[in-house]
């Protein structure tokens, strides 16, 4: 089986500042991989570099195809759905329009309609808010909408950038349960960036630990979970 996503020597810059140093990353199909590390470790940058949203070098490939020089739009259309930091809500559009936007990119409208029903299955609240301006949704609902938009793209891989950010613990738990179900039932693999390491370790089967733009260690999440020294020095618990 070819791996879903591969990055070799991935580096990234913000202006003159280098944020990633020769990162190697492999994501297998079907799994959930977590990127952990402190603030400024390069987690968000890694996601942005995969989607070509920052200046970067190194090679990335998706399902065996080189995507290093593809545009963000093309990478998305190939099946990489990025749920961005800050949720990326289209605040002036209605909830429905936020979701329906995916019809613009998808050829198979019947499949897109099925995915819309799927989104409502996972997030019934979005159906209730269908005609509401998306900017009026609560933070948790906007996070659900962001995941819903990603699902609408019929992705093979979801990149999730801190889905727990700024949300109440109860809402976070609900969202992570839904993410697990999506991963299990929809054959969507995930690469998740989280500050809340315990939460991410629980969901993920594989972990990369970053520090100042470099990989410190990687392996099955059980390994990190059980390594107290590692946890204490890098994850702070």
């Amino acid at each position, binding site marked *: 089986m070819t791996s879903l996503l591969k990055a070799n020597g991935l580096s990234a810059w913000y202006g003159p500042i280098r944020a990633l140093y020769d990162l190697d990353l492999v994501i297998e199909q079907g799994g959930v991989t977590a990127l952990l590390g402190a603030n400024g470790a390069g987690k968000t940058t890694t996601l942005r570099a995969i989607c070509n949203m920052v200046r970067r070098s190194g090679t990335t490939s998706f399902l065996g195809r080189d995507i290093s020089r593809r545009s963000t*739009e093309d990478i998305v259309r190939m099946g990489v759905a990025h749920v*961005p930091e800050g949720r990326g*809500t289209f605040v002036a*559009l209605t909830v429905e329009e936020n979701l*329906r936007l995916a*019809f613009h990119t998808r050829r198979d409208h019947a499949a897109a309609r099925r995915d819309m029903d799927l989104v409502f299955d996972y997030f019934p609240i979005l159906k209730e808010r269908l005609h509401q301006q998306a900017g009026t949704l609560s933070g948790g609902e906007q996070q659900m909408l962001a995941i819903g938009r990603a699902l609408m793209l019929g992705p093979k891989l979801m990149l999730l950038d801190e889905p727990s950010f700024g949300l109440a613990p109860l809402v976070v738990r609900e969202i992570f349960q839904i993410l697990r179900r999506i991963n299990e039932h929809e054959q969507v693999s995930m690469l998740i960036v989280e500050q809340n390491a315990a939460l991410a370790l629980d969901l993920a089967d594989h972990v990369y630990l970053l520090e100042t733009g470099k990989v410190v260690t990687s392996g099955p999440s059980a390994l990190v979970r059980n390594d107290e020294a590692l946890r204490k020095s890098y994850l702070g618990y």
Partner: protein
Amino acid sequence: MEFFLQQFAAGLTSGAIYACVALGLVMIYVSTDHINFAQGEMAMFATYLAWAMIDAGLPYWVAFGLTVLVAFAGGFAIQRVILKPLERAPVLALVVSFIALLSIFNAVAGMIWSYTIKQFPSPFPSRDLFGNGLVSVQQLGVVGVTLVMLGLLTAFFRFTTLGLAMRAAAQNADSARLMGVRVSWMLALGWGLAAAIGAIAGMLVAPIVFLDPNMMTGILVYGFAGALVGGIGNPMGAVAGGFIVGVLENLVGSYVIGNELKLTFALIIVIGVLLLKPAGLFGRVIVKRV
């Protein structure tokens, strides 16, 4: 009373033209979040192209259609060639580019076709509609074309996914890219549509005010006022605003302040709206929760 009705009808006609100009402004605002100050001069230039085609012997409607197409392509090209490199430039740089475009179009039109005014044919007969001197077929035609255009645009933005993608691209370009929307093409499309609408406005107004390189200068201010009154993010509001400004301008002009201060009146409207109701009469206030 009859004088009032006449002025009212005349106001509706100029209002229709302001509405077209406002629609062009809204189009670019909705798809790029910018105000295109060159909108009027682009319309003027397109009208000269139509004039040249008709002068060369093409039938009116053929020239009309070709002009709309050429204007669309021109607007598209302006975005691709001039504005795309400025995508990440500060807003002020863009404003300066728009003003540069304005004076370039004005000067080039003057250079090619000279500054002497020209007559431009109207597709509608100037004959009286009911025989009572109130409304002419010409006036009705201008209003009708505006309303049809509004209908088409509204339907486009509301019911097509392409229209939705354009709105999304304008609101949040990064997030739109993450939904697979090719943002820079959407912007070019917005410019193309705006230029096409402008061309129609130019061809509607030219038979009334005569064709010369400065014909749109004042009209742009009225169009701008109309767009602001109605809410600059909303095509329907812009058209309503255009009509309101047209009628007010005529009535206030004939009863209160006289013709000389009409343009000042438009500016007062602009400032008044910006001060009192920045979202416009029909604009939606965008609620943002963090």
